[in-house]
């Protein structure tokens, strides 16, 4: 067995099988009732709370993904086409904030969005508002803003790589054939950078859907996501089988959404081509 395969087996496959097996058990006091049952899955399907939390998670991380990609595309574009010296330096500088701990960045946003935070005190000093804006913190918006910033590095890198790879002579050809900058962008640059866009979407959407710490610190009661609920099952609620089931259900949903997304972009690309 090659080392890669061994690591994959021990690090991913075995834990996954354990998770899968536990998801078919039932909690029994402090132990497990190991009789096989699909009760947890029935509950996950029938009780509205789980569906609602999943929906909310997909909504929050979907919006966060969109915002991140929209914000990062121009940055990657600039470096790929308009920076000619020290490109790597630019990329390193752009990703520099992401070398600090994720938790620290989330806390930083708590300070920025807080009741007496940077934004609120700034707006109040300027005189635009007299009462601090309460929705800035402990809301879904707060979670989206933070996720969009915290995962930016994961969008910039694939976007930059795919933009960088574009053959510049194609752009010149488009210009020679009469395309203006806008038409050129939509007909050449964007379609050719789609692999980067798709990669960025996946890299952000998949991990943020199950994100735990951001909604826990910034979400408040209405910003809680499925990750928080899964954590509770393994912690305070003390129902590991249910937690395992929810993790599996989340994984299945993400796979499904990813497949649909991939299918749509394939179709779109075929149409353009």
């Amino acid at each position, binding site marked *: 067995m090659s080392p890669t395969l061994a690591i994959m087996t021990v690090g991913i496959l075995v834990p996954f099988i354990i998770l899968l097996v536990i998801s078919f058990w039932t909690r029994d006091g402090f132990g497990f009732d190991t009789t096989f049952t699909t009760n947890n899955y029935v509950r996950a399907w029938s009780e509205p709370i789980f569906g609602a939390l999943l929906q909310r998670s997909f909504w929050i991380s979907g919006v966060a993904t969109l915002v991140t990609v929209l914000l990062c595309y121009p940055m990657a574009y600039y470096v790929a086409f308009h920076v000619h010296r020290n490109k790597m330096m630019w990329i390193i500088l752009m990703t520099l904030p992401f070398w600090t701990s994720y938790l620290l960045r989330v806390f930083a946003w708590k300070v920025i969005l807080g*009741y007496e935070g940077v934004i609120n005190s700034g707006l109040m000093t300027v005189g635009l508002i007299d009462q601090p804006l309460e929705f800035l913190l402990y809301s879904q918006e707060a979670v989206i803003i933070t996720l969009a910033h915290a995962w930016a590095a994961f969008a910039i890198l694939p976007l930059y790589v795919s933009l960088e790879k574009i053959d510049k002579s194609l752009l010149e050809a488009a210009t020679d054939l009469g395309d203006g900058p806008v038409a050129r962008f939509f007909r050449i640059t964007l379609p050719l950078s789609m692999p980067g866009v798709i990669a960025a979407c996946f890299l952000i959407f998949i991990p943020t859907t199950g994100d735990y710490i951001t909604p826990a610190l910034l979400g408040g*009661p209405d910003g809680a996501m499925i990750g928080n*609920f899964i954590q509770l099952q393994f912690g305070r609620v003390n129902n590991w089988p249910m937690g395992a089931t929810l993790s599996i259900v989340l994984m299945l949903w993400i796979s499904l959404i990813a497949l649909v997304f991939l299918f749509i972009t394939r179709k779109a690309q075929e149409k353009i081509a």
Partner: protein
Amino acid sequence: MDVVDQLGAVREGKLSRRKFTQGLLAAGVAMTTLPVSARRAAASGDEATFFTWGGYDIPELFKPYEAKNGALPNFSIFGGSEEALTKMRGGFVVDVSHPCNQALPRWVASGLFQPIDVTRLSNWSDVMPELVDLPGNAADGGNVWMAPFDWGQTSVTYRTDMFELEGEESWDMLWDKRYANRLGSLASGADAWWCGAIKAGVDFADIATDEAFEKIAAVMREQRPLIRTYTDDTTTLEQALSSGEMVAAMTWNSSATLLKSEGVPVKFAAPKEGALTWVCGVVIHKDAPNLDRAYDVIDSLLSVESGKFMINDYGYGHSNIKSFDEFDAATLQDLGLSKNPFEILEAGHFQQPQSQDWETRMNETFEQIKAGF
């Protein structure tokens, strides 16, 4: 791979993509392994590990320990005792942990702890016997599993300048619609659910009945839209009260005492329905790797020095009767304390141990309510 070479290459614009990825990989590996080695370094030496609530991980409570062993114990923090028990049940081994009377019988039943040999504690003779004599502890004529350490109340801390009181102080304050989105609550059902029971008028003796569940769930649901955030982190509540983001929140004694010492105009309410009262203490893990130091941790917590700090700086009751001799009756009354702990504990609603099933059902229900269901 030489870092200076890399930086040179970056400056000359010659860093290849391959090199760059290698650099990223190295940085990534370094970042993920650094905390591990740092954690090991912190855990090295033979100090005991104290698994406790936030706020007890401070040097002030471990002066005797430090004097004896030359270092502080290691700390690990939990947000609620149910979370702590689940974590230890999952294999997390510590030396000493910190449950409360209500959870104690279930903690003992988990088989994760060892009885305390009180003869090894120099401060034991000063510990108030009423606090040791609790259900699940020595009261049943059995072992001493928990050495009582702190006792206090869960009540409402409110801004006297911002919260307009209507009539007497009451739990209704945390259900006051005038202050929607400006009220806070502890996230743990071990506090919030019991406070909900007081608000709903449920006698703690009946708290396990279906009817009680429905009644309490109803008041918790009613409160939920008014709550800005539920948190286990008392600092979050304290900061929110101090900035005026919240005008009232469910807290323990310490939050009010700390805020007062900062000059924030707050009061720890004495609700007309009665506050929630509890006794917490320390237990020793059955596989405690540093048993001698574990006893040092407990002895240090039970010392008069620590007690003085607990009363003066946190406003909690302490289990060492001599700690109270440092204060006059007026100061104690001002803090809502007394030399006779049961005068205070019985005046409020004293938490009672419940079964594991109850605990699980309660947490499940409460988490659903918090999530909006």
